[in-house]
């Protein structure tokens, strides 16, 4: 029985196997790396600057305009993250907001809003801002316009390492929810 392959066949087959193994090794590596990497609030540099933990928290007021950083924001419409908090929030026109319920989801879509007079934030143990995103609330609905006293929203916030609180700030006050 003749043993072995010819040199040409061995090199050709070796290249095919190398490509297959490279694909398998990188595929697994990327799966592992994605599981280890904390979620990024927004993919674009401008959005990262506006939404990153280092961004200065913006305190809204009734007369203030939208945060300055959001003026240069050119975010993607959304980003899908492996872990998010779903916060059900009631925003009152004349009183502080109320965080009614916070639910952990295995996966969720974060919409990187570019402007708004209110803020949803994720805080660490020292109540330093880790993530901040503005959002709008309109108390006028219908035609003719009717004024509402409260509006209930569902906000999606990313899960971050070291997070402890969720804070909602509006012109009328703020609410803090301690995460479990």
């Amino acid at each position, binding site marked *: 029985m003749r*043993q072995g392959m010819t040199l040409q066949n061995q090199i050709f087959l070796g290249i095919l196997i190398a490509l297959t193994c490279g694909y398998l090794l990188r595929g697994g590596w990327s799966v592992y790396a994605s599981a280890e990497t904390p979620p990024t609030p927004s993919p674009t540099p401008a959005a990262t600057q506006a939404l990153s933990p280092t961004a200065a928290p913006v305190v809204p007021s009734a007369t203030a305009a939208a945060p300055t950083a959001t003026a240069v924001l050119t975010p993607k419409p959304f980003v899908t993250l492996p872990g998010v908090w779903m916060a059900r929030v009631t925003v009152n026109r004349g009183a502080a907001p109320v965080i009614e319920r916070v639910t952990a989801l295995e996966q969720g879509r974060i919409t990187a809003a570019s402007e708004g007079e209110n803020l949803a934030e994720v805080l660490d143990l020292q109540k330093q801002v880790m993530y901040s995103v503005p959002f709008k609330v309109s108390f006028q609905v219908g035609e003719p316009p009717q004024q509402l006293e409260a509006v209930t929203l569902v906000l999606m916030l990313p899960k971050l390492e070291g997070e402890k609180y969720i804070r909602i700030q509006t012109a009328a006050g703020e609410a803090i929810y301690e995460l479990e």
Partner: protein
Amino acid sequence: MNSSENSPATPPMPPVKPRGGAATFWPAPSRAGWVGARSGAAAVLLPNHQATVRAWQEQNPGMTALVLECGGYPVAAAAAFGFVTRKKLEAALSPAGEGSETASRRLYVPVSFAQQLHLAGGDDLQGWKVALVPDQPTALRGSTGEPAAAGTPNMWVVRLAAALRLWLGQVLVFSVPLFIFGWQAWLIGILALLLSALILAVTWRLLPGPGWAKGLLLGVLAGAGAAAALWFGLQVEPAGLLPAAGVGLLFAWMGPVLAGLRKA
């Protein structure tokens, strides 16, 4: 082996042409069969290693050689990997054993081959009287054919040296395709090939079956081990087990590589 290559009626093989640099990192096989004039009363047993056959042809013109298919390895490596077998040798000798004139013929056998085949000087093998010669039978002219004084090299060292040489050849082939997928894939791939080559070199005579079967067995074991480490150690998701398949494939690949090459 094709028996027609061993037939006495087969014309002598032309001299082996020198091969290029590929012989540095790969086995260099030549055609198996009878080489040189067939009229002599003596023949030397050689592996189908190009450099060995060529050197023998240059220094022993007019003598006969029986070239056995040994994956293109030199004498010591072919013996260390167990590529020369009694069955293979007897099958190659049998066509030439016909006729009464073969009774006095002498077969010069390198000592490593003799050790592998359990042959001693003076043994009779299908009408051929065995005489031992050094593993480099390039200067056979003038030899008495008595048992050679030279000892046999350590088979483990020979296999490890051959495995490292062939691993370097595979590094040349695998580097660019693996690097396409990142330096991590390159590093893991090269190290897996090295580890596989070393393990196979050490366990070659212990593992059953031909080279590809040894590689397959090692590949399955290595792949299963890597999968277990990923699953229980890093607790990855099922999709994260893909590298284990890659590692298994790399380990398996060195089996057929170490089994040598055959002439195109």
